[in-house]
C-alpha cells in the first residue's frame, strides 16, 4: 500500500450520473495493482467531507503508469471528486484489499454487474482478455443510459448483454434465462458479480446448481480501510459457523457461496 499524490489526467462525466477519472502514478509501478483491489481516496484536501472514500480500480494501464476509476456521483464525497480538475493532485492510498481469482484452465467467465459494479468487474475482464480466457458480461442498470463501458469491453473482445429496469429486461427471471444460456452454450465455468444483492443471490443459486466457481466483490462504508476500525464487515458462513470478517482486509473479493447475503 502506498500513500501517493497522483496527478489527475482527466475527470469527465460519461453519462447522467457517472464519471470517469484517469490518474498518473508518479513514484511506483501500477503493475502491482490487481483487478478487484481498491484505493481509499481523499476526494478533497480540506475536511469536507472528512473521510476518504473507497473506489475500486476500473482499469490498470502499465504502458503509461496510469489508473482509471468509474464512479457514481451520489453523496458529498463523489460530488467533490467530480469537481476535481486535470493537473490537480489527488491523495490516494492503496492498492488495498485482495483480488479476483481466475481458476486455472478456466474456459469462460461470466460477469454479472449492476450499475457501477461493472467498474470492479471490468478490471477482471481486461485481465481475462490478456490471458485469452473468453469472457461474457451481463450489464444491468436502471436505464439504457446508465449502462457503462459497453464499448470498452467490446473492444477487447468481451461480449456484453444489456438489461435495464425501464423495459423490464433486468428482472431476475430474464437474467436467469440469459445466464443459463451462457452457462450451457458458452462453457462458462466461473461467475463474478458486483453491485446488486438480488443478482448476487441469483448467481449464488446458479453457481450451486451448476457447480461453478463464483466470486463476489463487496462494497461497504469504510473508515480506515486498513483493518483497524471494523466498520466494513460482512458475515461469511463456513459449515455451520458464521464469522464476521473485514471487507477491506479479507475482501473485497470473497467466495460467493460463503457470503451471507440475506
Amino acid at each position: 500500500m502506498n500513500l501517493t499524490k497522483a496527478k489527475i489526467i482527466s475527470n469527465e462525466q460519461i453519462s447522467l450520473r457517472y464519471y470517469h477519472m484517469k490518474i498518473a502514478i508518479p513514484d511506483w509501478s501500477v503493475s502491482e495493482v490487481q483487478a478487484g483491489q481498491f484505493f481509499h481516496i481523499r476526494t478533497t484536501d480540506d475536511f469536507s467531507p472528512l473521510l476518504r472514500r473507497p473506489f475500486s480500480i476500473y482499469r490498470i494501464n502499465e504502458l503509461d503508469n496510469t489508473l482509471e476509476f468509474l464512479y457514481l456521483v451520489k453523496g458529498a464525497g463523489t460530488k467533490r471528486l467530480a469537481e476535481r480538475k486535470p493537473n490537480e493532485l489527488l491523495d490516494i492510498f492503496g492498492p488495498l484489499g485482495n483480488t479476483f481469482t481466475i481458476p486455472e484452465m478456466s474456459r469462460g467467465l461470466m460477469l454479472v454487474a449492476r450499475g457501477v459494479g461493472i467498474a470492479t468487474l471490468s478490471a477482471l475482464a481486461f485481465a481475462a482478455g490478456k490471458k485469452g480466457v473468453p469472457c461474457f458480461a451481463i450489464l444491468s442498470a436502471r436505464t439504457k443510459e446508465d449502462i457503462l463501458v459497453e464499448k470498452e469491453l467490446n473492444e477487447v473482445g468481451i461480449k456484453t448483454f444489456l438489461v435495464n429496469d425501464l423495459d423490464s429486461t433486468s428482472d431476475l427471471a430474464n437474467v436467469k434465462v440469459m445466464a443459463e444460456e451462457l452457462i450451457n452454450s458458452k462453457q462458462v465455468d466461473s461467475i463474478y458479480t458486483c453491485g446488486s444483492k438480488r443478482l448476487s443471490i441469483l448467481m449464488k443459486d446458479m453457481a450451486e446448481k451448476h457447480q461453478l466457481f463464483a466470486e463476489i466483490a463487496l462494497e461497504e462504508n469504510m473508515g480506515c480501510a486498513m483493518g483497524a476500525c471494523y466498520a466494513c464487515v460482512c458475515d461469511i458462513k463456513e459449515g455451520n459457523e458464521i464469522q464476521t470478517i473485514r471487507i477491506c482486509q479479507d475482501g473485497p473479493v470473497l467466495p460467493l457461496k460463503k457470503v451471507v447475503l440475506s
Partner: protein
Amino acid sequence: MSHLEVSIGSLKLKNPIMPASGTFGEEMMKVIDFNQLGALLPKSFTKSVRKGNATPRICETVGGMINSIGIQSKGIDYYQNVTVPFYSQFSSPLISSISADSIEEFAEVSEKIAAKKEVAALELNISCPNLKNNGLAFGMDEEATRKLVKSVRQVTDKPIIAKLSPNVTNIGVIALAAEDGGADALTVANTFIAMSIDVHTRKPKIANVIGGISGPAIKPLVVRLIHQVYQVSSLPIIGCGGVMCGEDAIEMILAGATAVQVGTANFVNPTAMVTLIEEIENYMRQYKIENITDLIGQVILPEGANHKNDMGSCN
C-alpha cells in the same frame, strides 16, 4: 532541543502522541514507524469472542463520524497469543484497552493481561454499557466508576488509565471517583453519543440507530472537558477527541492534557500521528518551549475566572 517526554503515572512516554482505541491496527506499520509513537494502543478487547453490531457501522457527519462497531473482539486468548507478541516487537510501550460487561469481568481480564510483561499499562473502557446496571455505562455512574477502578487496582500495580465517558452531567465527579478508586490517569474522553438520519429513506444512518461521534467536530467539547477535569483532579489526563494536527494537540495540552490520543485523523491520513509529532516540535521551536510538560494546563484564563465548578452558568 525540544523534550517531548511525558509521564503517565510510572509509565514514561518518549512523546505525548498515541492512537485512540479502535483506530489503530497492525496493518498501519506499512505506512508509519510504530517506534516513533509515544505508546501503542490497539483496539479494545473483551474476555470472550464478540461479534459486534450490524452494518452500516459508521456514517459521516459534518466534521465528524458516528460509529457503533460494538467492540468486535477475538477474545482474550487471541489478544494474549497474537496481539501482545506482535506489539512487543516495537520499542513504544503497549497500552491494553479492556472492555467488559461487569466489574468482575474487568478485574478478571485486567489481572490476566496485566500479568504479561509486554503490557505496560491498562486503559479501562468504562464508557461501555454495564449489562448488570440496565445498560447504563459504568462511566456514567460515580459509584460504579469507583468500584470498577478499585477492583482492577487490587489485581495490578501497573498504571491504570480510566477512559471517561463525556456523556455525563459533571465529568469532574466521575474523574474524582476514578481517582479515588486508584486510577493513575484519565483519558478524556470517549465518543459523544449521537444520531444521524437519512431524510430520503427516513432511516437512521447506522444500524444501531445511536452511536458515538468523533472527529474535529467534537474537539471544542473535549477541550472543555479536559479543562474541567484538570481543575478538579491531580491525575495526568490523556486528551482524546478530534485532534487533526499538532496545534490541536497543543490546545489539549494547554487545557490540561499530559498526552494526546489521535483517532479519526488516522483514517483521513494514515501518517497523521507521525506528522503531528513533527508539528508539535515546530510549535515548541516557534515559542522556544524546552519541555512539553511546561505547557500542561498553561491556558491563560481571564483574571478572577473560577471555572472549578462552572458548568456553564446562565444566571
